[in-house]
């Protein structure tokens, strides 16, 4: 974060019913996710890991969305940028480092799948694929199953705005509309898909403008405002839970870092643009808000940082010390055995 960047300050807390402890928990979740993510970039630069895809800048919408869910009860079908989302659902820093190092005991995949494919039955996190948008039809199926089984679970599926160009997005949301499914499709619109800007993906101004063609509700939210994100997601989720059908939520946000450790974003966007967005940094904005409410001061901010540092140091050391999977781990489980 460059020092001269002045933060734009506005947080819309209208209709938000969270107590001070909960407000601070959101802050903690955002800061911890940011620090883990920054550390992972360092690990990549040091040549210790093969790849990193970052959620920096997306923390507000992700944490807001997670806390709007009944965590552990509702389903989340996430995408690779959802580190903060996953952590807020109960995925741990150690889980993440085991994944980036590809170590034995990695809980989502046994170190068989790439990192950032956030999955866990306990947290209600369904297994995402790498081909983008394929989670949307699957989420429609999960939501359909919940509805058919008479459960009051809501399915939240996430993706980026570029990925909405896939047929999967359209076909999945068409189902959600036809079957009046308890499903929220959350599009994190950071205006780029790797190097390709939004206007080369779609001819409409907002992803959410497409909702009427599916017969579902739509909402657009400032995805860098954690409280607005929380409120909008909460409304959509509770409407879905009450039988009101699906919502397409578009969170306007920005990715101030490269797409992944494989690209250099200077080739496709100006530094001025990136700096302008840094003024809207979701964590700094929220920090100002909490200070004004007397919930944060310099000391408390440092306490949060120290706690995050300690948790991350421990997680990283622990994962580094873990062994690699043994060769036989490569073999299964492909099929469930025919005869158990």
């Amino acid at each position, binding site marked *: 974060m460059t020092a001269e960047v002045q933060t734009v300050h506005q947080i819309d807390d209208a209709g938000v019913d969270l107590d001070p402890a909960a407000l601070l928990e959101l802050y903690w979740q955002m800061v911890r996710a940011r620090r883990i993510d920054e550390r992972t970039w360092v690990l990549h630069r040091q040549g210790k890991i093969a790849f990193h895809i970052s959620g920096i800048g997306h923390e507000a919408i992700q944490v807001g969305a997670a806390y709007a869910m009944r965590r552990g009860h509702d389903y989340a079908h996430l995408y690779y940028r959802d580190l903060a989302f996953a952590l807020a659902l109960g995925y741990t820093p150690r889980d993440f480092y085991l994944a980036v190092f590809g170590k034995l005991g990695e809980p989502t995949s046994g170190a*068989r799948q790439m990192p950032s494919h956030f999955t866990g039955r306990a947290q209600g996190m369904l297994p995402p694929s790498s081909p983008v948008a394929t989670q949307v039809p699957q989420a429609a199926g999960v939501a359909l199953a919940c509805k058919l089984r008479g459960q009051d679970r809501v399915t939240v599926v996430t993706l980026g705005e570029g990925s909405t160009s*896939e047929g*999967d997005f359209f076909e999945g949301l068409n189902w959600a509309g036809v079957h009046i499914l308890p499903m929220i499709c959350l599009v994190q619109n950071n205006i780029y898909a*790797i*190097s390709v800007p939004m206007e080369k*993906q779609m001819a409409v101004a907002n992803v959410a403008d497409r909702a009427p063609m599916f017969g579902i509700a739509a909402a657009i939210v400032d995805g860098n405002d954690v409280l607005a994100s929380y409120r909008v997601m909460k409304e959509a989720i509770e409407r879905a839970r009450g039988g009101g059908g699906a919502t397409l939520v578009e969170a306007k946000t920005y990715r101030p870092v490269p797409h992944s450790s494989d690209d250099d974003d200077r080739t496709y966007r100006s530094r001025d643009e990136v700096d302008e967005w840094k003024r809207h940094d979701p964590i700094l904005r929220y920090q100002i808000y909490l200070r004004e409410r007397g919930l944060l001061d310099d000391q408390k901010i440092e306490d949060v940082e120290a706690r995050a540092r300690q948790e991350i140091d421990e997680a990283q050391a622990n994962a580094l010390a873990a062994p*690699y999977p043994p060769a036989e781990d*490569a073999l299964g489980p492909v099929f469930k055995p025919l005869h158990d």
Partner: protein
Amino acid sequence: MADKVITIREALSAALREEMQRDERVFIMGEEVGVWGGTYAVTRGFIDEFGEKRVRDTPISEMVIAGAAVGAAMAGLRPIAEIMTINFAFLALDAIVNHAAKVRYMFNGQFTVPLVIRTTTGGGKQLGATHSHAPEVIFAHFPGLYVGVPGTAYDAKGMLKASIRDDNPVLFVEHSTMLQRRAAVPEDPDFVLPIGKSDVKRRGKDVTIVTYGKGLEWSMTAADTLSKDGIEAEIVDLRWLRPLDLEPVFESFKKTNRCVVVEESLPMFNIGAEVAAQIQQEMFDYMDAPVKRVSAMDIPLPYSREIELMALPSAEKVVAAVKELV
């Protein structure tokens, strides 16, 4: 005109550039091909040289990239569509196998589909099972679609140019870990290699290794090792999975009477199965040993470094397979 030592990446760029200069109906479209210059930097600078009209960044829509390419080809252009990895070509499978491959036959030659779909293949980069398989054999199953997989810069240039000039649809598959490999390549803009011709890459008398793509590299390394033990392998690089040219394989087999097929495909229903079947049909009297196959293991390719490498073929595995035969 002279030869020049260049990388596979440069060979591919040169082929695309020359063919775009030669024929203005040729254009490129795909994800990240324009401003970014291609996921593997093959089209870097093209947007400045040829303009946005002919170098087109598309939405993330594999189905439309392939489907629209079929359409544009039927309507008189010669599209080169890029799919980031062959593992994402599954999202475009219908356009490729049900349409590109079948239209000419189904409609009695009224429409041809002069289309090239360029894509990458292969593992070894810790990208997990949905990025890293080498399933080109699946596409070779369908008549009507040519499938080329170059293993050298020389072949990459000559094969890609031939693909662009041909009136049939071609799936052109480049190995994502081989783009820096160098070889001498003709600079002559009319250098093209015939479609559907395999090539003997090494002479030997003791065993025939049949391979393509990355398998060529493992096989060449293995042959050097084997040579030190007095075993001389002859290596046939198929280059094309369709049309599949096994004549040089049969010729070689008459001399060696033994064959190992090396490929990065999964082990079941792969090129090795086809080659073994054809050898036992055509060369039964020459067989001194069963045909051996070296391939990836029969699992989705894992992420963690060591187990990923274990699941892939290697020069050591080729050496071991040959030593079981001779």
